[in-house]
């Protein structure tokens, strides 16, 4: 019996080492039991991103979160964003990848919503602005994004912007950055994605 247990423990060691050592604690999944799971890649300190529900994320401090739809590059993504009083807004980068962004090769299309208004930019071009849409404490914003071929539509609340034609390739990634200090808290609720079939 003891020998069998020791053999089992010995055989378990390489499995344990490989499983623990090759796991990536900076990646987690939301909606993992649905047809369209979304991978969340935390690019900051490990404790800055926490899964607070099946499709909810709690993001603390100045970090960046990458939402990855592994099955689609052309998709609709919807989320509800809210936050603490120390949060000044949210910035969403589309049609780029984390690696391209950090390598400064492609910044993508950027949606910024802060206390002064909303802007959609691509490179140095401003595609749309709206002063009537602000970041308000206690007022969750519903943000929906659709990447369909060369066109991107963005809806903030009930207002739809676009379609914006772009030459940027569609990617699987959407980068989300809270705007604010290290104590800013961003809550993303009901994050969901679905693919678009052309």
């Amino acid at each position, binding site marked *: 019996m003891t020998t069998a247990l020791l053999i089992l423990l010995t055989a378990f060691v390489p499995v344990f080492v490989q499983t623990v050592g*090759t796991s990536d604690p900076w990646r987690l999944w939301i909606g993992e039991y649905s047809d369209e799971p979304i991978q969340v890649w935390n690019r900051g300190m490990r404790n800055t991103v926490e899964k607070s529900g099946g499709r909810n994320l709690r993001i603390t401090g100045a970090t960046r979160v990458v939402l990855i739809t592994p099955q689609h*590059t052309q998709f609709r993504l919807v989320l509800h964003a809210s936050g603490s009083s120390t949060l000044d807004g949210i910035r969403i980068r589309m049609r780029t990848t984390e690696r391209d962004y950090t390598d400064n090769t492609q910044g993508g299309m950027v949606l910024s919503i802060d206390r002064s208004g909303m802007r959609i930019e691509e490179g140095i071009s401003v595609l749309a602005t709206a002063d009537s849409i602000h970041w308000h404490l206690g007022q969750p914003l519903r943000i929906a994004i659709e990447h369909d071929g060369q066109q991107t539509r963005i809806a903030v609340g009930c207002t739809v912007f676009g379609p914006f034609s772009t030459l940027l390739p569609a990617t699987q990634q959407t980068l989300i950055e809270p705007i604010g200090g290290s104590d800013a808290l961003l809550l993303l609720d009901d994050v969901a994605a679905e693919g678009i079939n052309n």
Partner: protein
Amino acid sequence: MNRYLRTVTALAACALLLGSCSTAGLRRTLTRTESDTYTHIRRDTTQTIEFTNAPGERGVIYPSDRTVKTERTIQQYDSTAERHFPNFIRFGVFESAGLLATGPSDRAVGGGIFGIFTDPNESFGNNITPKSALFTGSMYRFGTVELPLYWFDDAPTWSVGTSVAEIFQWEASNDRAIVGALPLYFRKRLYVREEIPYFCITGAVGFGFLPSQYLNLSASFDAGSLGGINVRTYGGVLIGRSIEQRSVVQPYLGFGVSLLDFLNHPRELRHQWKDHEHSSWDVGLLRLTPFLLLSGGDTAARGQSIGMQLQVMPATVGFPVGDHRICVGVDLWNFVFAFRQQQQANPGIGFGYGVLPLRVGYWMPIADGALAIEPYAMYSYFPHSMWQVAARLHLNAVEWLPVGVTLGYISSAGFTISRGTIGEVVGRNILAFNVAYLGITIGIAEELFRPSQLRYYRTEQ
């Protein structure tokens, strides 16, 4: 010990078979791959306008027959960018150490300072006779893998790992020997120097389950890796049961060396393989040189004599002087089989071998490193004196399988042997020899590096 060694070997073989049935399996463990998928869509509209006017003068208001054909096309294609990153903190093939005061001084294993300078009569065998020596014990570790461990709220430089096998031989008997197959180790490194070569203090907790059950608490001061070469100072205590099921509580202190043992700082795990910093001109598992004797062989031989040189785990590191083309190298073992005497009742063998022989040379890369010429001198000081002067043309023909041509001269002082594995395999009538040779070199699992891959040249750029 035989039975246990067989058990360990069998377990190790099983682990290797299961863990890396293919090189892809090992690569998956040692390499992390990130991929980004892009979809490019291009819409295009082509209008073709065709006028088919009727012949003759029709006036300006006469309607012309015009056909407009509009074609809309959508071109969509996906492209995937893959990036490969190292995923291991440490990957080592061989590590050994000489241990101090682990038993009575007249019952020493006699492996010397690094545990591998063993008597030729006992080398590669398991029949060890007690002898008087300062380094009484030895430690050997094979096939070590350490992967990053993220715990304690991301406390850095932790690792979890195992080895195919590790052996602690405290003295020249197996009563207290500790043998572990696939032990589990948790290690924490404190970097004293964060540049290559790294200097760090490593604390380790290890658990062995089979065939010995033990707990190993140890600390070491590590220098390396540079071309896979490391030197270490060890201290620790091992508590457990030996392979003869005797209780053992053994503190130890020792010095060690390891080859083909690569250490990555955690920050290097975020650098792609293509940007990885290398320090050596070449590193390999085996280098085989069958050669034709040009002079100095068996005088009674009628035809040409063929010999063989085998270098185990050769490494050639760029020396940090000038343009880094002066290189120093070391092998774990260097075997030279020069000739066997013919037409004799007890034929003499032109044979020599060296443990950790030292090599100095000059590396001349040609065609951006696809070719290289390396004139070098190598000196083996243990277990007997043997030196070699040669020039080698390296050709990076196939990945992990370079070939080359070597022209050289080897002089061996010879040594006497009365028993043991070497005597059984090679013969006991070992002769001194001086030979000139021309050989073809084949590197097995060997990689030649180009100047652009060496960190020295990147820094200068």
